[in-house]
């Protein structure tokens, strides 16, 4: 047999080996582990746990962790209620990040971004996200994903080698397809977590219909955005897209739990959290410099019943930040509306003062500066404001 033919045979054999390893089987839903799970006597799982433990050690001292007891109790309370028997398996880290996300590790270390609280219209929606994350944990998704990636990359490398032998050109086709395959597996896990998550949420007496509302709202925010998110490339589609998730969740929930209640009851728990911590939560969102998205969130907060003094202050902030022609007037109008309603923060007066100063109306600016100092006698920028008062008077 000549060498060329030999090579073709080897390569074909390697391809078949790889193809067999690629076949995937969907599994029925349900928890795969008991509460209080610890890693099994497998080297890769022990390794993952140690690696995450190290990460958690550094996360513990992060300056971005939210430590306010009220916020933490609210979040941990939801996690525990959804997790039920698994409650003690989780360590919850609330992280200051205006993005919409939460994450889970194989060890039960859970990170929740504050952007989630800002975007929710109900505690049920937050619970829905947690249900999804908890399902990742109880179905050992990290470990399975890691094992899958290992085996696929191994067979893919062999496949690539076969192709190299066959063609004489090193082409990472096998690895590329293994990655795509892994991502498809990943998306399948996401769907699994979505569906099991809904069951957990419903069992905890939260509204399962909240699960797709989260996605609908994200879509609304996307529609309102001035700059849209880039569509994920084929090599970064780790999750199904939000339309697809909203769609299959709606179908699943309606089928399993019947139609949604027509009447939406105000969620006092979430409302209290937003009212009490609104400034830092929304300042982080404002810092993303995304006018359309921030406004969409503010509109939602108005409907929810967040104190109008707070919401209008941030409407003013969005205009002041954008600073296009006409925005100064819009900002002044929004700040003024804020000062006339419940919850207006003292800095509304200060910003009104600055805007009027810029517009050349010194007496009005000074009136607001004085009101600012009255409302906030221990203001850290008191000296600066007093300087403005004197400077303009002399």
């Amino acid at each position, binding site marked *: 047999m000549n060498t060329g033919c030999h090579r073709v045979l080897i390569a074909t054999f390697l391809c078949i080996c790889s193809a067999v390893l690629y076949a995937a089987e969907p599994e029925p839903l349900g928890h795969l582990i008991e509460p209080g799970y610890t890693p099994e*006597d497998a*080297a*890769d799982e*022990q*390794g*993952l*746990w*140690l*690696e995450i433990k190290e990460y958690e*050690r*550094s996360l*513990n*001292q992060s300056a971005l962790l939210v430590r306010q007891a009220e916020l933490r109790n609210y979040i941990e309370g939801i996690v525990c209620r959804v997790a039920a028997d698994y409650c003690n398996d989780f360590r919850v880290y609330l992280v200051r990040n205006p993005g919409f996300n939460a994450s889970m590790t194989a060890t039960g270390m859970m990170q929740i971004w504050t952007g989630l609280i800002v975007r929710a219209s109900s505690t049920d929606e937050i619970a829905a996200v947690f249900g999804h994350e908890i399902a990742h944990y109880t179905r050992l998704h990290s470990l399975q994903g*890691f094992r899958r*990636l*290992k*085996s*696929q*990359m*191994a*067979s*893919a*490398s*062999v496949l690539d*080698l076969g192709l*190299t*032998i066959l063609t004489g050109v*090193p082409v990472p086709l096998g*690895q590329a397809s*293994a990655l795509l395959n892994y991502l498809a597996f990943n998306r399948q896990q996401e769907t699994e977590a979505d569906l099991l998550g809904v069951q957990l949420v419903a069992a905890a007496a939260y509204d399962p219909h909240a699960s797709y509302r989260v996605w609908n709202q994200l879509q609304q925010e996307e529609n309102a955005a001035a700059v849209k998110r880039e569509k994920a490339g084929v090599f970064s589609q780790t999750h199904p897209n939000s339309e697809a998730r909203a769609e299959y969740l709606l179908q699943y929930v309606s089928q399993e739990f019947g139609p949604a209640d027509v009447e939406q009851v105000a969620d006092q728990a979430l409302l209290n959290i937003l009212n009490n911590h609104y400034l830092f939560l929304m300042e982080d969102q404002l810092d993303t410099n995304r006018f359309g998205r921030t406004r969409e969130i503010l509109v939602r907060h108005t409907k929810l019943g967040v104190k109008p003094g707070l919401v209008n202050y941030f409407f003013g902030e969005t205009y002041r930040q954008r600073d296009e022609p006409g925005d100064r007037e819009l900002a002044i109008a929004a700040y003024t509306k804020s000062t006339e309603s419940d919850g207006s923060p003292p800095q509304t007066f200060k910003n009104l003062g600055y805007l009027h100063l810029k517009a050349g109306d010194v007496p009005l600016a000074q009136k607001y500066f004085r009101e600012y100092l009255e409302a906030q006698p221990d203001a850290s920028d008191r000296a600066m404001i007093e300087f403005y008062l004197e400077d303009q008077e002399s």
Partner: protein
Amino acid sequence: MQANPIYVYRWARWSQVTACAMVLALTTGCVSTRTSQQVENLESIAENPRIIMMPPDIRYYLLTAGGISEPHAEWTLAAQTNFSNAAREFSTTIGTDMRILDPDDTSDLEVEYEQLHSAVGLTILDHHFGATKLPGKGSGQVFDWSLGPGVKELGDKHDADYALFVYYRDYQASGGRVAFAILAAAAGSYVPAGSEHGFASLVDLRTGNVVWFNRVADGSGEMRQEDGATAAVKTLFSDIPTAQDNGTAE
């Protein structure tokens, strides 16, 4: 110990040698170390210079056939323990009192400086020893890196003159990876079968300055074994500044 890791370990080591011999002399030399230092001797108001060694940031990975690095807890913990023991023994030979912090008993302050050291150390690797040298630091001629004077807090807390930081990563090729590397070599392509690298720095706790820095690459030691860890410590700490009356300890 479990059967499996030993099995992998033995086979991998043996095959690695074979693979190297068979395939290509791609990796340079055996042990390679590069040192930079600002001081010749260590100073202290105490009888012996007092060093605290941060929990050594040593991690072992299994490099799988497909090139995925799999963290390996058993190897990592063994390597950390062996290294700490060997380092404690070594410290007496250079006339210093060394204490090793317990990784399970570190405060935010220590974790913060561990992370800062990682960042500074990796930067030194890249910009002092690596290809992208910085003109502001004499294009690799000036060694004046620092963790900043804030680290004094660590010295006060532990009553120490110097802090020793160790960073080490070891990627052990699995049997499958080695077999694959041999196959690949036969087909004319190079597939890396394992690697190791690390660095250590000694920080003056009064100033925060990195007064000594050493990096090691392939062949620096097999820390999963006690004698290997002793060898690794000697390699990593070769040329470390000693107490003024060097070697009083024995």
